[in-house]
């Protein structure tokens, strides 16, 4: 316990502002109103036992800041994670509503609710209850993010219901399939460079530590993943993300216990004008 406190104290004392632009999870903050963002992500599994090769997934997402409280996102992806060759895999929708915000100088606390829906063409494989391309379903949850001078902490709880057609098949019921799960995430981030902000053109380097966990509602399956990540921000509008996700504990059958994530995100501010009132 003392060790943990000293680690927290050390992190707290680092003379840096921290970040909440997490790589593996979403913060409670939403996009600025009337802004757009485009994000390309590559998920790479170094070795897929079934196909005896690396498996990859590529996602494209468009985000829009509808107003100061609501962000919407649509996405589409293709992959060879569940098929022998690259095929179109999924379409997704994500909406996030910030319902609480308290700002102070160099700190804030925010809470948001989100709804995520995904349609996947991929065959139903593995225990993981994942919407990011793998399976069809919906998910909803709550995120809380605290930014306190030197560091940002974020936590989320969400519930996922898979709506795969096999779940509603009255003739053939596959009892091993898992359709419901709770998801938890806990993220910590801080800014390593620049040590002191001078202008918008400085290259930023953010480091993140994230814990991502899932507990199924049937069959007692779970995983706890650890995902360190780094992020470069160029010209204050282009993000480059890299993360490695490792399973710390779990009893689920998964495509892999290891996964890389590389991403690229560009934002466009004030794309259209506020309506005069």
């Amino acid at each position, binding site marked *: 316990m003392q060790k943990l406190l000293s680690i927290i104290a050390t992190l707290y004392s680092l003379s840096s*502002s921290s970040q909440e632009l997490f790589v593996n999870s979403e913060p409670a903050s939403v996009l600025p109103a009337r802004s757009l963002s485009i994000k390309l992500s590559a998920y790479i599994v170094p070795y897929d036992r079934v196909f005896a090769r690396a498996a990859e997934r590529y996602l494209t997402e468009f985000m829009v800041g509808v107003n100061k409280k609501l962000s919407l996102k649509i996405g589409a992806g293709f992959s060879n994670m569940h098929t022998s060759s690259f095929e179109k895999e999924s379409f997704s929708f994500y909406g996030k509503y910030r319902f609480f915000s308290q700002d102070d100088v160099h700190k804030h606390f925010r809470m948001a609710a989100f709804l995520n829906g995904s349609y996947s063409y991929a065959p139903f494989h593995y225990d993981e209850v994942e919407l990011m391309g793998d399976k069809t379903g919906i998910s909803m949850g709550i995120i809380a993010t605290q930014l306190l001078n030197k560091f940002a902490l974020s936590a989320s709880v969400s519930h996922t219901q898979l709506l795969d057609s096999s779940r509603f098949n009255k003739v053939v019921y596959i009892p091993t399939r898992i359709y419901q799960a709770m998801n938890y995430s806990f993220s910590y981030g801080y*800014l390593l460079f620049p040590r002191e902000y001078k202008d918008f053109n*400085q290259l*930023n380097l953010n480091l993140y530590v994230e814990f991502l966990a899932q507990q199924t509602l049937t069959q007692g399956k779970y995983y706890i993943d650890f995902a360190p990540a780094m992020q470069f921000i160029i010209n204050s509008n282009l993000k480059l993300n890299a993360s490695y996700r490792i399973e710390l504990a779990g009893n689920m059958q998964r495509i892999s216990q290891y996964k890389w994530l590389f991403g690229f995100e560009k934002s466009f501010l004030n794309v259209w004008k506020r309506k005069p009132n």
Partner: protein
Amino acid sequence: MKKFFILLWTCWFVTAGNAQFTKASLEASGVTCSLCSKAIKKALEGLSFVQEVKVNVKAQDYNLVFKENSTVHFNDIQKAVEDAGFSIASLKVTCYFDNVKLQKDENIRIGDQTFNFLNGNNEILNGEKTFTIIDKSFLTPKAFKKYSAIVKQNAISNIRIYHVII
């Protein structure tokens, strides 16, 4: 009767015809990253009466220069910062006055906005003066607490009155 008072109140101001806002210094709250800061800068630059925004990213200070002879709307500045996802921690406004006398409980009209000066009794304003808006959403919640009673007491009118200290 209440209506009469409201009418009386709204008429009870002097128009400072020779006063013009020139610049403002805004401190944003809730921000620590340059990405977020850029969003605020862009939002402020999108305002029709803003000529230029200079940012001190470290301090989260935004120095706004207003266009000459333009009508400045402070609630538009507030909305711009909030639309970017953040809040105003303080807004210090600089105005060029030409012989304007401050009197207790008298509202002063500058442009098409009404201001209530909570201090500076019987002072004659000349030249550039800077004052701070102390209404809700123009201060951090903690800082606003100090003034909330005064601001509430004066907020009986149906027109927007900005409470300021000089």
